[in-house]
């Protein structure tokens, strides 16, 4: 199923914003003034770095300055999928997104057209969320927990063309 909502033009970062994205997806300086450390590495001022990051955040490019956690080291999670009749997709997606345990809720082009991650403090809670979604929608949910990671999120090399 093709997406129907129009996409805005991609954001065009400034030179400093590009440098920040290229350099600091994986190595946040663990020092009292991390933005000053980034600024020093890039020949800018601390205020300029903060402003550049705020601009990236306002544009939606920067989700956050923060951490990603290794899977299943803290709590439990699973990747879940549902085959939702097209006419019910918006309704079911909204129901799923309303759970505070749900993240990364996406439409995908497949018979299994709704994919999301459920994260909770324990496996039992994850299963409770999946069962509740099944009960409320009347649709089965595929539960695809991670068995073995081969590559974790290490940031994303961006090509600027």
């Amino acid at each position: 199923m093709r997406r129907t909502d129009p996409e805005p033009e991609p954001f065009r970062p400034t030179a400093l914003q590009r440098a920040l994205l290229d350099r600091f997806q994986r190595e946040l300086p663990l020092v009292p003034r991390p933005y000053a450390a980034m600024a020093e590495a890039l020949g800018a001022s601390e205020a300029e770095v903060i402003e550049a990051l705020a601009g990236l955040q306002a544009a939606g490019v920067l989700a956050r300055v923060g951490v990603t956690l290794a899977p299943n080291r803290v709590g439990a999670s699973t990747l879940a999928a549902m085959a939702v009749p097209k006419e019910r997709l918006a309704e079911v997606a909204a129901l799923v997104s309303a759970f505070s345990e749900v993240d990364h809720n996406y439409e995908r082009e497949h018979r299994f057209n709704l994919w999301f991650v459920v994260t909770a403090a324990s496996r039992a809670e994850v299963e409770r969320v999946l069962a509740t979604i099944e009960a409320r929608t009347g649709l089965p949910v595929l539960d695809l927990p991670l068995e073995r990671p081969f590559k974790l999120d290490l940031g994303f090399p961006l090509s600027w063309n």
Partner: protein
Amino acid sequence: MELSSADRRLLAALEEGLPLVPRPFAALGERVGLAEAEVLARLEALRAAGPINRMGLVVRHRELGYRANAMVVLDVPDPMVSAAGERLAREQAVSLCYARPRRPPLWPYNLFCMVHGRERLETLRLVHAVLMRSGLETVPRAVLFSGRRFVQRAARYARGAPQRAEAMP
């Protein structure tokens, strides 16, 4: 490593991201009752011991023009999964790669990876090249492009279950 309750509070508070102020670790510490130096020491320990997979700018690809994001799923014979996963993991175009259970008869695929591109044809070419190099071009597979991203509710911190590296849109 066992996470202390302070570690959990710290990770939960970090879900919203580090504030964009000159002393962000001090600000974070104020919210969870830790001194700036303790925050830095705990984060360093969590990074070194493994619960923190990555620390830095967390980027949304779509807003940068990477709109053709494909989840590639493969049905690899079980004895080959490790070798296949390791080969795929070495590919630069593959950002994530995981083994997950099959759910027959509905779902026959047991190896997942993510490939990002700016447009569909570019992504399909990348997928093809990766599979050829990995010797997986004849394995049954499906390529699931992402469509709409459904809006999330606000923060979910305080649930003791912070953001993962596991799933990429």
